[in-house]
């Protein structure tokens, strides 16, 4: 089975590119931040510098791990789901579920190892760059040398490997059992996340304006609310669709497709809502905080500076990761539809009409995701601004919101349309024959 796994990787490298990319990025980020532990552990590093470095490694390392798991798991799930037919064929040819599991998990492990190995070089450079950022802002003494040691290597490789193998195992188990997850738990989680988010955001008012931890409750509130919205994504989408009067063949098809596939599109919508909410909320609150500090005429404390660097870095990581997830899942979901596109074309749709349908679907998805993401972000931003300053809505929110929405829209529309265009290169008859 392992030989079969190796062969399937060698002959279809394109299929593993998405998984490889997320493993590579994940490992690179984990190694970059964990190399701060290595740097801090060197002899002759003063205690203040060591503490700054360890905090950065600890906080962002924790975030990174979670995100890597999320990204790799989502790519692998999509990857395995697309191979249902191939796995079914192997099963009918006599492969036991155990053999299938070993094959899929084996592939995932190989891809994760390759991704982690490729990430070592970039992570060394990244660690160097991060240390310079800390040194430039005076949080770490200039005499500290960068180091890339066992902690960075071990955590990077272990976590990527664990995430890949674990996600692959769960995905293949779900695929070979072929059962859907019950909806009750999802509903419960959604309401739970929404309630917790609302509570966290309102608890902001308990804090005083100068409290160091003021940013935490609204930030967690926004993230929890967006998780809640994301879990309810299919129903939100249906609610939006009910209010859309769309004419023309492409729009007509788009609305009907979205209505039928609302459940499948939840993953994409989830990434979109999380991306919009987290990016808008964190960046805006950081801007408000910086303005307030500047207005008070005080110089920033080292802690505040540290927090700012961290916030910006964390947002950067989240943005990159959610973008990868978005591109991955959109690419996979769209390329999976080659047969459906072929059927549309045989029924008389021109390539332009197929692209029009995909474009309309993606636009509706983007608007829905951005809408609820912004709501979640505002739920965090408003309490924070009220407590920290005298205003209600900071001026920065418009510029930041527009920038975030522009990135979200160009990433989703760009990926979906480029993928659909590629799918249209196959003749319609060939595209229809592939899966039959």
């Amino acid at each position, binding site marked *: 089975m392992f030989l079969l796994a190796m062969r399937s990787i060698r002959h279809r490298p394109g299929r593993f590119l998405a998984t490889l990319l997320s493993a590579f990025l994940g490992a690179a980020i984990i190694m970059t931040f964990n190399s701060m532990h290595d740097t801090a552990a060197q002899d002759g590093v003063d205690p203040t510098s060591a503490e700054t470095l360890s905090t950065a490694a600890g906080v962002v390392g924790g975030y990174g791990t979670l995100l890597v798991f999320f990204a790799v798991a989502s790519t692998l799930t999509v990857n395995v789901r697309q191979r249902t037919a191939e796995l079914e064929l192997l099963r009918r040819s006599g492969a036991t579920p155990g053999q299938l599991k070993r094959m899929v998990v084996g592939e995932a492990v190989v891809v994760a190892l390759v991704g982690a190995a490729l990430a070592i070089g970039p992570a060394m450079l990244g660690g160097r760059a991060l240390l310079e950022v800390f040194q430039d802002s005076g949080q770490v003494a200039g005499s500290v040398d960068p180091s890339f040691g066992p902690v960075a290597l071990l955590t990077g490789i272990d976590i990527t490997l664990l995430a890949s193998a674990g996600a692959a195992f769960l995905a293949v188990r779900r695929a070979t059992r072929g059962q859907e997850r019950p909806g009750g738990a999802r509903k419960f989680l959604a309401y739970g996340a929404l309630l917790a988010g609302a509570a966290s955001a309102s608890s902001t008012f308990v804090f005083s304006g100068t409290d160091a931890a003021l940013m935490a409750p609204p930030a967690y509130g926004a993230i929890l609310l967006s998780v809640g919205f994301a879990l309810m994504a299919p129903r939100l989408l249906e609610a939006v669709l009910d209010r859309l009067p769309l004419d023309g*063949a492409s729009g*007509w*098809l788009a609305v*009907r*497709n979205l*209505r*039928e*596939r609302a459940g499948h599109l939840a993953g994409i919508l989830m990434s979109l809502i999380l991306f919009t909410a987290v990016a808008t909320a964190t960046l805006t609150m950081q801007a408000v905080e910086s303005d307030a500090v500047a207005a008070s005429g005080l110089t920033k404390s080292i802690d505040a500076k540290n927090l700012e660097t961290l916030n910006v870095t964390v947002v950067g990581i989240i943005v990159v990761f959610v973008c990868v997830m978005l591109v991955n899942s959109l690419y996979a979901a769209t390329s999976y539809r080659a047969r*459906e596109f*072929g*059927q*549309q*074309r*045989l*029924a*008389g*749709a*021109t*390539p*332009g*009409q197929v692209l029009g349908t995909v474009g309309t679907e993606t636009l509706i998805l983007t608007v829905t995701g951005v809408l609820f993401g912004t709501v979640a972000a505002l739920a965090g931003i408003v309490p924070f601004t009220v407590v920290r300053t005298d205003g209600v809505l900071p001026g920065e929110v418009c510029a930041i919101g527009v920038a975030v929405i522009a990135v979200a829209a160009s990433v989703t529309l760009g990926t979906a349309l480029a993928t659909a265009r590629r799918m*249209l290169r196959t*003749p*319609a*008859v060939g595209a*229809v024959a592939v899966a*039959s």
Partner: protein
Amino acid sequence: MVRAGSRRTHDKGPAAEALRLVKVSKTYGARDSAVTALDGVTLGLGRGTFTAVMGPSGSGKTTLLHCAAGLDRPDSGIVCVDGTELTGGGEADLTKFRRGRIGFVFQQYNLLETLTVAQNTVLPLKLAGQRVDRGRAKEVLTSVGLGDRLGHRPGQLSGGQRQRVAIARALVTEPRVIFADEPTGALDTRSAREVLLLLQRAVRVHGRTVVMVTHDPVAASYADSVLFLADGRLAGRMDAPTANAVAERLAHLGDNVTTGV
């Protein structure tokens, strides 16, 4: 260039020949491993005829259908549908050319899973930008015996019912020629019979022209005539076919290959 979407040529009155192929050739693959799927096929099919195309696997019957229907481009030769030559241009031009001229029925139905039976049926009209009145879908679906299944999804229907929806979809645009690729290949005997009778009625009652690729002598016996294909060339023709005669002819197809019709 194809006179794309021009309904005028279509409405000027049908040509005497619904389909004409002149020396159509098609080769697949690179130079050293090239396979000649069609080797200079010339044929003409009159309006209101039901023709079956038969031949062993690899004889080029599917390629013939794809080339004649504008789904694939021949390397050389001329294809005329309803008196209009099918020439180059992009996929969009070919698609517009097919609208109102050509309908399809496939072995795998190719209905869209996200649409209801009624929506699938009127999809070609929607895509062509025509107004669709509510009665149209019901009328066409009733004619194939599915007037009570308008709101069902393809997944809720049997194979035979799905193929009848596909036939309704092919009929809805009132095309000159309907191409059917193994339409009964995935069906049981009874469903197959219903489908073949519907195709026959499209010819007899509505004056459509049907070209059907099949490997089943029984299916071929519903046609007015059978064209035999071997090694990419026409290898004979049989009018008023019976299942036994077709089977007999197929069995000896390799023995002496005659060209021409």
